[in-house]
């Protein structure tokens, strides 16, 4: 059973301001940024486009566009390899947003298929794909999964505005 809690912003929240400044407490990492070139071959093929990165601890999920077709890709950063996701990508759908649990076992994503925008949960250990309903009805746009893959937050278009729903996947 999926328990859905709608997270509501109170107008009072919008009145909060911080008056502190960062003088003297800011640091700049500019001179010591360390890219990870040993992984670049997995996420920088010149004929492909990569967007919407989502990190687990040692996993990177991205949307990869190759020859006009976009799909979800999962990289095992420790093993330096692309992991197969059987049953996840479909030729008739367009992924919009993806998020991965800390251990790389669960992926939540939003995809457009025909005239429907769907929110789904993929479990690698089982190879299963489950559609999650958004309630009250709305159109999902962007998703974030917690580290354990048991709670997700999803941005939903609803009644002309954007809401964020928090969904607890208690029985999975």
């Amino acid at each position: 059973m999926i328990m859905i809690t709608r997270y509501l912003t109170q107008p009072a929240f919008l009145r909060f301001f911080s008056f502190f400044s960062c003088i003297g407490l800011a640091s700049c990492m500019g001179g010591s940024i360390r890219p990870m070139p040993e992984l670049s071959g997995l996420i920088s093929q010149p004929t492909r486009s990569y967007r919407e990165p989502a990190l687990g601890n040692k996993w990177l999920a991205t949307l990869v566009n190759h020859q006009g077709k976009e799909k979800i890709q999962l990289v095992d950063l420790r093993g330096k390899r692309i992991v197969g996701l059987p049953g996840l990508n479909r030729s008739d759908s367009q992924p919009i947003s993806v998020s991965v649990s800390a251990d790389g076992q669960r992926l939540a994503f939003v995809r457009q298929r025909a005239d429907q925008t769907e929110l789904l949960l993929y479990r690698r250990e089982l190879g299963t794909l489950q559609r999650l309903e958004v309630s009250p009805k709305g159109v999902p746009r962007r998703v974030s999964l917690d580290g354990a893959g048991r709670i997700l937050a999803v941005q939903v278009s609803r009644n002309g505005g954007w809401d964020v729903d928090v969904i607890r996947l208690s029985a999975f």
Partner: protein
Amino acid sequence: MQSNGFISSQEDPALSGDGRKLALIVDRNGRATVQLTDLRSGRVLPLRFLSRHQPHTSPSLSWNGRYLAVITQRGNRRQVVIEDLLSSRFHQFPTLHHRVPIRVSLAPDAGSLALQFAENGQWRVELIDLTGKLELDQPAGALRRTSDIRE
């Protein structure tokens, strides 16, 4: 949603690894501003350094919500910044080669960062190693220092 004259505008959600905190972008007086909420209490948590430099986009949280990464506007530059809510420090993160950051994702343990930017007409993603720059932020009982923070 129209409610008390207020049109709902909550975008770009990001959960902490432990699922207890939620960062999102809200419309604050017409400015896209990151907001951090404790989901158990519903309380909005104060951010010491992130009330300016809007618009904010693409928030991302570490495991316990210690670190909040977000893309800000500083002058005419888009820039990744990280607020450390535990030590009240603020890390500015200029990108290499004047790349304009579009999306950012912080690993749950804060050991690495993924950046999306545009290059030669295509979207690119680059991984940045943060070990030695930030203390790791791991599940309770697993917190440890890998090396000193370099300022």
